[in-house]
């Protein structure tokens, strides 16, 4: 047999399609798939969340807030509790939890509504608050999340999505790194609507409890001065643009004819003990 050497001209072993194109197509397909799953899950969670009984939520709460269970409230916490209790009594339609508020040391200016009636206020937020009414508005806002059962929805979505991602990627961390950040961004966008609904609820409850709405927008005004991020950055944030929250609240105040009132600087008693408590 005669051997004839021949150069490789057309390489059939390598696809001619550009790798960049392959990458984009794969990314687009996965994004579309995740988006559909996300929508379906969102729908399911929205259907299921309001139907979860208070008893079941208490059980979930025991899991989610395990580190808060049986935690003794500090003097600080009790002062906040004194603001919270009248608010809770103000709305009989609130789910019948044992509402408790705790202060947690954290520089973030934020407060959380955890399942089964636990509210966590970060010390970073406490530093910003100047009047009882302002604090009451924040607590009433968190009560709004309980009233609308937002934390269950949010948790359901996150939980199911996390499970899905782990399932799809087979626990492969590289793909999880691609997918997870984009999911959290979507999740945050979703909760902005809930934040606004909780604002409205908080405002109504504030007015019901105090007879006026002093301090309702104080916190957001402060935030809008503090964070002069451009508006588009709020797409990536858990909370809506403070400016648009102030506007929505002001509109509602005018619409309902709420009285402006005068803020009560009861906070004075709390600040020294607060400062002492956290200077350690």
């Amino acid at each position: 047999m005669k051997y004839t050497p021949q150069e490789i001209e057309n390489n059939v072993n390598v696809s001619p399609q550009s790798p960049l194109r392959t990458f984009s197509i794969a990314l687009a397909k996965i994004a579309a798939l995740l988006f559909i799953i996300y929508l379906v899950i969102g729908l399911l969670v929205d259907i299921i969340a309001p139907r979860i009984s208070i008893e079941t939520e208490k059980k979930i709460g025991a899991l989610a807030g395990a580190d808060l269970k049986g935690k003794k409230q500090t003097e600080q916490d009790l002062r906040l509790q004194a603001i919270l209790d009248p608010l809770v009594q103000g709305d009989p339609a609130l789910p019948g939890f044992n509402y408790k508020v705790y202060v947690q040391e954290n520089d973030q200016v934020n407060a959380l509504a955890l399942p089964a009636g636990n509210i966590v206020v970060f010390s970073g937020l406490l530093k910003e608050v100047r009047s009882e009414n302002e604090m009451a508005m924040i607590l009433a806002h968190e009560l709004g999340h309980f009233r609308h059962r937002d934390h269950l929805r949010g948790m359901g979505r996150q939980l199911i999505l996390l499970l899905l991602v782990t399932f799809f990627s087979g626990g492969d961390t590289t793909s999880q790194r691609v997918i997870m950040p984009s999911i959290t961004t979507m999740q945050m966008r979703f909760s902005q609507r809930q934040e606004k609904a909780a604002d409205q609820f908080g405002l109504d409850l504030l007015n019901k409890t105090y007879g006026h709405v002093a301090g309702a927008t104080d916190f957001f005004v402060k935030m809008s001065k503090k964070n002069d991020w451009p508006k588009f950055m709020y797409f990536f944030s858990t909370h809506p643009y403070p400016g648009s929250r102030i506007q929505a609240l002001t509109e509602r105040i005018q619409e309902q004819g709420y009285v402006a009132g005068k803020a009560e600087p009861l906070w004075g008693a709390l600040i020294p003990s607060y400062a002492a408590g956290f200077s350690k």
Partner: protein
Amino acid sequence: MGDLIQLAVLVAIGYFVGSRIEKKHYRSIKEREKKLLCCPVVTGDDFLEDKPIRVTRLVSGSAVISTDYFKMIAGNLLNLIGGEVSVFESLLDRARREAVLRMKEEATKADIILNLRIETSTIAGRNSVEALAYGTAVYYEK
């Protein structure tokens, strides 16, 4: 968000550096293939001419080629949805051709290399591929 930016930067670096290196490698492969075209390599064993054989010996060449971050991420995405994982094709192609070239370079002045076999395996988790080419170099009496 920070994670996403970090990932995008790594993928971009992987793509630009990776494709530069790949282009350079292919240039070198093609050049050397042309140079070594004179030495025949076959997979069979019945290509011997009717000449007395001076010596035969085992020759081998191996090459390890690493993937880049772009290929890795693209490959992972394709793993999710299935289909041809075309981003890795050039990697394997380069490894195989490089291995054969190295084998030929080892067998300088051989009259023919018989029984060529190529084996591949993964190295360092799934990040690199090794191709091993081996065969029997035959030298005739001059």
